């Protein structure tokens, strides 16, 4: 990325370690797009994305002395962002049950279409599909949800997920398998129940 080559990350970090506030501001501005993408993708309900992003940056600054350079700095920050989001997702109460009655008209139509349509063609209402995907993801454990979201929505590879999260490949595959199995059960249950 041209932005990354233009930005002197090493020099900026050295200045931040010397408590240079201007450098800290530059670092936040440089890393904000990376952090906000993770935060938006894994944002718990009733949490403001800006508050969560701020928490990520505050953790980053407070742990800066622990950064040894074993992984690239943006990867290190993305791991902080991921763990912060998971902590917030764990703290929120999951819905006890996923029901047809909780869905909007459009979401119910989309769900009906994916449950009954055997062809490869997906539903046309992308916004409703997007909302529905997130409602279904809410039913999963935070770490499983994160893996499935990165795999199936953001279409990241296992290696890329490992870089972002710091988890090993086997753990990622196990989490993806567990999450898909739970969703499959949920779909079967929904198929049995009347709309």
């Amino acid at each position, binding site marked *: 990325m041209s932005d990354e080559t233009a930005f002197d990350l090493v020099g900026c970090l050295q200045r931040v370690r010397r*408590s240079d*506030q*201007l450098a*800290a*501001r*530059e*670092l*936040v*501005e440089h890393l*904000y*797009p990376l952090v*906000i*993408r993770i935060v*938006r993708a894994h944002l718990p309900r009733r949490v403001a994305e*800006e508050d969560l*992003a*701020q928490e990520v*940056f*505050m953790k980053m*600054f*407070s742990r800066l*002395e622990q950064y040894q350079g074993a992984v690239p700095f943006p990867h290190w920050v993305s791991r902080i962002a991921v763990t912060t989001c998971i902590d917030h997702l764990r703290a929120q109460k999951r819905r006890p049950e996923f029901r047809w009655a909780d869905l909007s008209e459009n979401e119910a139509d*989309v*769900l009906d*279409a*994916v*449950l009954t*349509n055997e062809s*490869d*063609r*997906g*539903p*046309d*209402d*992308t*916004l409703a*599909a*997007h909302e*529905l*995907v997130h409602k*279904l993801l809410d039913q999963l454990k935070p770490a499983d949800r994160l893996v499935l979201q990165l*795999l*199936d*929505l953001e*279409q990241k590879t296992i290696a890329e997920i490992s870089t972002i999260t710091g988890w090993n490949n086997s753990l990622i595959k196990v989490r993806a398998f567990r999450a*898909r199995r739970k*969703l*499959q059960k949920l*779909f079967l249950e929904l198929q049995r129940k009347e709309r």
Partner: protein
Amino acid sequence: MNPTRQPNPWDRLTAAARQLPDTRDTSAPYGFATRVAALAMTAPRPSLGIMMERFSFRALGVAVVLMLVSVAANYTALASAFTEETELRDPIAEVLDLGS
């Protein structure tokens, strides 16, 4: 995605959801970086005491694990040592037994 896997409801749903473009701005909102930088630079740095506490807990954990591993590895030796202790040979009693 695994190409051998048949498209299921989840695959169809995520394929549709991916069509929705994320057009939201990813640059930091006005004042955000200044506020966060100011907060970070005025926040107290972790003191030596807190760092020591953190390392002490880690060291304690490692010590407990090592202790459990060593006990498990030498369990038979330890168990037999205790049983041998109860059956300690008493040379004086043996001499007296021989004399009688």
